[in-house]
């Protein structure tokens, strides 16, 4: 609040200076304003360069702040004032919490917990959850390696792209993904190419077994631990075969991502407690599984509700903008597919990056048989605070740690604060660079216009009026540059990016954030511009008052 007021003060004072002080100079002020404006036009190359510098500097600051604002918005948007999150005692994050069945059933019966009136038995509005992070190899890195192996058409096994393994391709790969361990492989020929495959080939067999889909091929190859793989393919109507070592894939397999999976007991209740709705599809069934037809055979798939963000991320793996209802994906080492039952309206919250499925299925699958948390819905913020206090101080049936969701998510702001400090540091240095650059230009402008200043002084303009004129010139430039910089930086608004939020006490969540440029950020951007204008213009302007008219005209 104080910061915002201070920033508002800087911008306000500057605008006040331009709008009020300069007109007070009367007709002299008008002449000076015209003189300055004309000068900016006459020296247009320098003016343009200065504006470009402003756009760069202010634009950078706005984009960086939009990133942090996106993180803040996520943590703010994830909590509901009436919710209380309960973990096991001593846990600092739900990732490390272990709650037993009896602990939760005791907790949810407390009187402050609301009941779901739409159900016959008035079930408590309590979401029983198990939270696990799954270490998942990137599908790209396994077989469908766009950079290193080959690229398949998304819906078939036709090879559409093979690497040239050229230096430039390797360079492009490293540039686009410099931190991937795969980058180290970029100079080697891809496993597909080493197996003799060419673009246009259709892969038909894996170790003499027919394969029907790209994903199936990926799955069977992932399961292979050692030895050679033989791929059968069709080329121009003729069958062919190629072999390569599993080691080539095993190296590629190393690129991974962490997927956040939340096992819930009752999807209807959990959606109500967290305040989400389904955008598409439906909640999963009581069993949490459904039968699907996969390549002509019937299989049981685990039903899942995806956040919009994770649906997009998983969609990219299969060259789709987003997974939709009925699409399949795989988690962990299970050959059992997951099927998208619905997409939830989790945008703007940390849940956007999560996969929800039946607790009893995912808990067992990923080795966590207990619950992580129970989230309880109360009437409002006051009741939530009372309930969390009651659980902390008076509840003796189980050792639990309770906090309101607002407290929990605000504790996850630690990363945001750290990023904000780092960005403030960069912004400060960039501002110093800008101040020096502008000062340089203004000094030059004044030295070029020594004679003009001399004439103005002889005509009766005071030193203060000349100072005001040059300061105004710097501030006008800063104002226009700042506005353009903010406009350029605002282009980042709405872009999504991956990041992590954490309390600084361990754990943390991978999130998909939406970069947000709001009024406060524009104010920051304008403040940076005006500070550059004010500091960069003040010293040269002050210097101009010390010029003696006769000396200047000599």
């Amino acid at each position: 609040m104080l910061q915002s007021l201070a920033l508002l003060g800087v911008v306000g004072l500057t605008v006040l200076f331009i709008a009020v002080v300069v007109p007070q100079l009367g007709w002299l002020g008008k002449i000076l304003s015209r003189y300055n404006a004309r000068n900016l036009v006459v020296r247009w190359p320098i003016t343009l360069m200065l504006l470009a510098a402003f756009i760069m500097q202010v634009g950078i600051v706005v984009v960086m702040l939009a990133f942090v604002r996106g993180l803040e918005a996520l943590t703010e948007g994830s909590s509901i004032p009436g919710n209380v999150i309960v973990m096991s005692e001593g846990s600092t994050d739900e990732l490390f919490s272990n709650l037993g069945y009896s602990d939760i059933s005791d907790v949810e019966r407390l009187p402050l917990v609301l009941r779901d009136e739409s159900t016959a038995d008035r079930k408590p509005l309590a979401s029983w959850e198990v939270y696990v992070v799954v270490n998942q190899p990137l599908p790209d890195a396994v077989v469908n390696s766009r950079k290193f192996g080959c690229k398949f058409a998304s819906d078939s096994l036709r090879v559409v792209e093979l690497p040239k393994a050229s230096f430039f391709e390797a360079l492009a790969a490293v540039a686009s993904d410099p931190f991937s361990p795969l980058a180290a492989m970029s100079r080697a020929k891809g496993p597909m190419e080493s197996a003799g495959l060419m673009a246009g080939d259709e892969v038909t067999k894996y170790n003499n077994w027919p394969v029907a889909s790209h994903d199936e091929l990926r799955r069977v190859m992932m399961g292979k631990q050692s030895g050679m793989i033989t791929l059968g393919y069709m080329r121009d109507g003729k069958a062919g075969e190629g072999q390569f070592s599993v080691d080539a894939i095993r190296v590629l397999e190393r690129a991974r991502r962490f997927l956040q999976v939340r096992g819930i007991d009752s999807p209807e209740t959990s959606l109500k407690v967290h305040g989400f709705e389904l955008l598409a599809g439906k909640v999963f069934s009581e069993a949490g599984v459904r039968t699907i037809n996969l390549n002509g055979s019937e299989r049981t798939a685990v039903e899942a509700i995806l956040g919009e963000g994770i649906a997009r991320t998983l969609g990219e793996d299969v060259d789709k903008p987003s997974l939709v209802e009925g699409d399949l994906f795989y988690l962990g080492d299970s050959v059992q597919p997951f099927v998208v039952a619905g997409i939830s309206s989790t945008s703007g919250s940390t849940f956007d990056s999560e996969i929800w499925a039946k607790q009893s299925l995912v808990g067992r699958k990923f080795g966590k048989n207990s619950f992580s948390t129970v989230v309880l819905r109360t009437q409002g913020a006051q009741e939530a605070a009372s309930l969390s206090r009651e659980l902390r101080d008076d509840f003796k049936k189980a050792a639990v740690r309770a906090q309101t969701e607002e407290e929990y998510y605000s504790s996850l702001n630690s990363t945001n604060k750290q990023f904000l400090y780092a960005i403030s540091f960069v912004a400060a240095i960039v501002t110093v660079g800008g101040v020096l650059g502008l000062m340089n230009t203004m000094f030059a402008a004044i030295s070029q216009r020594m004679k003009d200043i001399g004439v103005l002084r002889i005509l009766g303009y005071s030193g203060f009026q000349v100072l005001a004129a040059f300061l105004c010139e710097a501030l006008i430039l800063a104002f226009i540059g700042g506005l353009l910089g903010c406009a350029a930086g605002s282009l980042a608004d709405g872009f999504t990016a991956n990041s992590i939020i954490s309390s600084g006490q361990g754990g943390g969540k991978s999130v998909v954030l939406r970069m947000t440029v709001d009024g406060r950020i524009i104010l920051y951007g304008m403040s940076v511009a005006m500070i550059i204008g004010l500091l960069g213009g003040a010293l040269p302007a002050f210097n101009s008052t010390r010029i003696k008219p006769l000396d200047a005209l000599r």
Partner: protein
Amino acid sequence: MNWEDLDGRFLGLVDTPRHALETTLVQFAALFFFVTALLFLPRVWFYMSFIVRNLWRNKIRTFLTGVATMVLVLVVTLVWTVLSFLNLVTSEKASNLKAIVTERWQVPSQMPYAYATRLTEGATKEEGDYSIDPKQDSMTWAFYGGTLDPANRTTENSLFFFVMEPDRFLTMMDGIDELTAEKKAEVEAAIKAMESDFNKVMVGANKLRQLNKKVGERIKVTSLNYKDIDIECEIICELPEGRYEQAAVMPRERLNRALDDYERKNRKPHPMANKSLNLVWLRVPDTKAFQAVERQITTSSEFKSPSVKVETASSGVASFLDAYKDMLWGMRWILVPFILITMSLIIAMAISIGVRERRKEIAVLKVLGFGPSQVLILILGEALLVGGLCGMASSGVTLWFINGYLGGFKFPIAFFPTFMVPEEALWWGPLMGLGTALAGSLTPSLSACRIKVSEVFSRTS
């Protein structure tokens, strides 16, 4: 300190190269002498005297341009420090690899301690399998976090222990060669003491300050991740400032005995008893050995519940950095280019103004016989000299100040405690300065070449 980020948290302590300040200073001095030697070349000297005099004539402009270049080079140097470090730790090594064995699908990794014996041998099954010497080339880690004040837990009163075999601290942990002989002897003595008395621990210097404790004092740690396994121990050694300044080391046997005691008292195993092995480190000589060990472990039926994965330290780190990839992309492709362009613009403005002011002088030079190329060299030279020298000074001072004085700079990414400016920064600075100076001054320099004597003097007359 984020003690619970079990898998990734401390990967940052491995393969985090530090850069010897001495070597850096030698290189810096060599560069300085090289530049100085250049000054004495007669032809260069001729131009240089012109350039320096021109720059000296307008000291304020030279100063402001130089300082602006320096501060912007500072930002880019810091950004590249982070990026190059991450690049380094995620690049696969060809020899002397460290492999990490962790739980295959879950984060944080929590394996049964029963896995330790076979994993540290490399899970050899048959003759011809690659065998690891467990005493020399392996290390097990468990993470034990606790607080000295359970009623009022803060970051300051919390501490994090590597629970490990004490003797491996000197043989398997990185950065030990950076210890002074005296400190190394002290750590060796402490390790011997820890092997005979499991209640002795080592604590990082910074953490000791935060805890307000000294070597010789006893502390009671209430566990946060091993509920009801509280440890009373004696601090016998202070780990030096740097990568281990926040950490602490506890003998593995201490945790094992505490878990056994719990089972005896409660007549049931502790909930974490079967999850008390977080990481196993294995050192292998080359990629071939790594692949052999990886195959031996991942194909073994002994490690199926939970199943495990073997990866190199670099790929382990890369996985954790995946969540930061957009931010790193932004730093690399938005922040740095924008700053470099800003630097070019600042230099371009300074040079443009200079050329405009000196049109008459340039015309006189042309009358005196200077060709366009010579004028070009003079104008470009001014920009290059300011850019190059200020870039070099900025990166040199940054390196000296950050590495030598601050002991690295903190940036909130992944689990890396601090970043040290690499020696390469000594080249980045001058190159950035020269590159942006060239880009910024090329157009004004060319316009200076095209100045026509007749036009300048006709205006004057």
